[in-house]
């Protein structure tokens, strides 16, 4: 995450609907005042919106009664939280050691070329977000690629293109 993130962008992005905001307010109300609530709240809110843009973080800070910088600090610390919109499908390539030595790196390079987008970014048409992840613990079937909720095992570089094309 770049430190030069534009904090002046204050208006709520258009894709965040009023239903989503109501849901965020409900989540915050249920956790307000509870110790250690911030991370679970952010997890739930990201499930609702899909990502956590600054205006959403400010809303959460306001409703939870915690300083905005604390919400921003936690959001940017953990890799599960994203401040950018994500694709309809998230393709996660495991870069754990076992997957790495068994061809995970080649799989990722092939995908970057095929989707024409570098790792940890989203394609322009928002069809795919391509990510690398730290060991999914499925080393027995390395290399592993997780597309949305489907775990694909023993994915070799020359099979990956076919595989992702199944996700519209």
């Amino acid at each position, binding site marked *: 995450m770049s430190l030069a993130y534009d904090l002046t962008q204050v208006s709520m992005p258009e894709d965040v609907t009023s239903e989503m905001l109501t849901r965020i307010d409900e989540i915050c109300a249920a956790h307000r005042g509870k110790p250690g609530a911030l991370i679970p709240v952010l997890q739930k809110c990201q499930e609702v919106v899909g990502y956590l843009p600054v205006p959403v973080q400010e809303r959460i800070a306001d409703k939870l009664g915690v300083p905005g910088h604390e919400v921003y600090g936690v959001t940017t*610390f953990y890799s599960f939280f994203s401040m950018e919109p994500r694709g309809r499908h998230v393709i996660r390539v495991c870069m754990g050691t076992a997957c790495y030595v068994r061809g995970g790196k080649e799989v990722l390079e*092939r995908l970057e070329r095929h989707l024409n987008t570098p790792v940890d970014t989203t394609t322009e048409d928002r069809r795919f977000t391509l990510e690398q992840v730290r*060991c999914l613990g499925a080393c027995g*079937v390395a290399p592993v690629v997780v597309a949305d909720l489907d*775990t694909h095992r023993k994915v070799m570089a020359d099979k990956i293109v076919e595989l992702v094309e199944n996700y519209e």
Partner: protein
Amino acid sequence: MSQISINDLAEIQQRSQQAQALRHGQAGVGTQRMHLLVCGGTGCQAAGSIAVIDALRAEIAKQGLEEEVAVVETGCNGFCALGPVMVTYPEGIFYVNLEETDVAELVESHCMGGEPVERLLYKDPGTKKRIPHMRDIPFFALQRLIALKNRSMLDAESIDEYIGQGGYQGMAKALKQMSPEDIVAEVKKSGLRGRGGAGFPTGMKWEFCQKATGDTKFVLCNADEGDPGAFMDRSILEADPHAVVEGMVIAAKAIGSHFGYVYCRAEYPLAVHRLQLAIDQAKEYGLLGDDILGTGFSFDLQIYQGAGAFVCGEETALMRSIEGKRGMPRPRPPFPAQAGLWNKPTILNNVETWANIPQIISNGGDWYASIGTERSKGTKVFALTGHVNNIGLVEVPMGTPLRTIIYDIGEGIPKKHRKFKAVQLGGPSGGCIPEEHLDTICDYEAIVKAGAIMGSGGMIVMDDSTCMVDMARFFMDFVQDESCGKCTPCREGTRRMLQILERITEGKGEPEDIDTLEELAEMIQEASLCGLGQTGPNPVLSTLRYFRDEYMAHVVDKKCPARSCVALLEFKVDVDKCKKCGLCFKNCPVDAIAWKKKEPAVIDLDKCIKCKTCIENCKYDAIY
């Protein structure tokens, strides 16, 4: 069912033991004559085990065998690479790589005809013979199970099955018959050391916390298994979640705690699901909550899901994260046993450590201490992966040589034209052990002497196609990315080390780079705040110790001996070595290779995308 008493527990145990008797070679209940235990761990699920289970149940119903044959979904069996796997009882026959389409034949032949389906049995990679019984397969035969005792033996989602295997008896004994001091003494006697990696004596940690003053104390479980290439904790949580719950209640009694958390990484959805189910079931039986088993002791437990930060495996960072903050470590002392979560006395152990506790209490510390070496007691679970035939989870007594694990249990290197190069232990905090030290035994001190650490159990075997400089670069990339940024030596130092390693793998290294790497490594080790930085340079130092020549080849000759670093490859065919087999030509994804029978291959460098598919497929190392 409402809260149960000790007598109820004994009754459930007896009933459930009978229901599982078939799996121990005894007569089953009623008309039941066969149990089919199909693995439902993450690896096997990825391979389609749920569809196999559904198909099995449907076929068994279709044949009218429901009263005779039961299908059980178990937790991780450990032999993940061959999934979906299934064990049948009472025979103990082991089936591998099952598919939905095999089910009809399986039911007809195995369940109805009494004839095992030969083609689905495990095939030994060495002798190429089929081995029907699980107990005869070297991968299983040489293991000794304590932490993994119940793997693939029971339905991980049933508390009754766990109780049937003697579950919650250790807890009942600790709560009913033992004083907090007795519990600590028993754990100390066992010699158990923390299985998360550092190997701190567990009993001693508990004693510090027991003696700490304060009416609020916490018991935590570290299930933030972050080392790449490690899945011991995931597997235990998926296969035997109640063992962790039981262990934590015992510790709670020992230190006088009434609340605990399991900090589990969000990358493990199935483990979280099974553990939550286990907690709910334990609460329903009153094995968690108020007045457990009518003993007057109360303890409650909650899961806290991490949000993706490796440093949260460090104890003080983990506690900050549960407090809802950025997971950054803080200096010690004070140690968590005095001031941990929310500044209250806290003990934190990892999943594998917890899974050992119930049996130590049930069977006694002396029993546990009778296994292992002088200073490392009991067993250790390893996740055996990489370039090895049998990939999976392995539990061996301390004192077992690494060679036994890799060659007897793992059955060696899969590709015939490849040779063993090194085994990596301890992930980003650990190191590589080469061939000449393979007789090193599993023992905390012995492994350190060989230049690695026991670590949490990741064991990655590498053949000679692995570049050790690139391996060091891989781990350094990991460490610098996961560095929390709080202390300068780790934040800046690891980044500089990575830059140098990248330069070397790109063929732009200078001989001085190696001295600079060593100098930086020493400084980062000594000056970093937490274990992440203090151990981060280890992979570089251990590869420099054993594979210095390989670094020199990159720096001086601008060559990668393992032919792995793309920038140092020319993608040309050595016509003397080329056996004209055409495998490179057949596998090239962009048709950049020209080849005719009886002629060496030629690579068109304008078309070549340097994907290395040809190099991986060439059995004669003819492409350089």
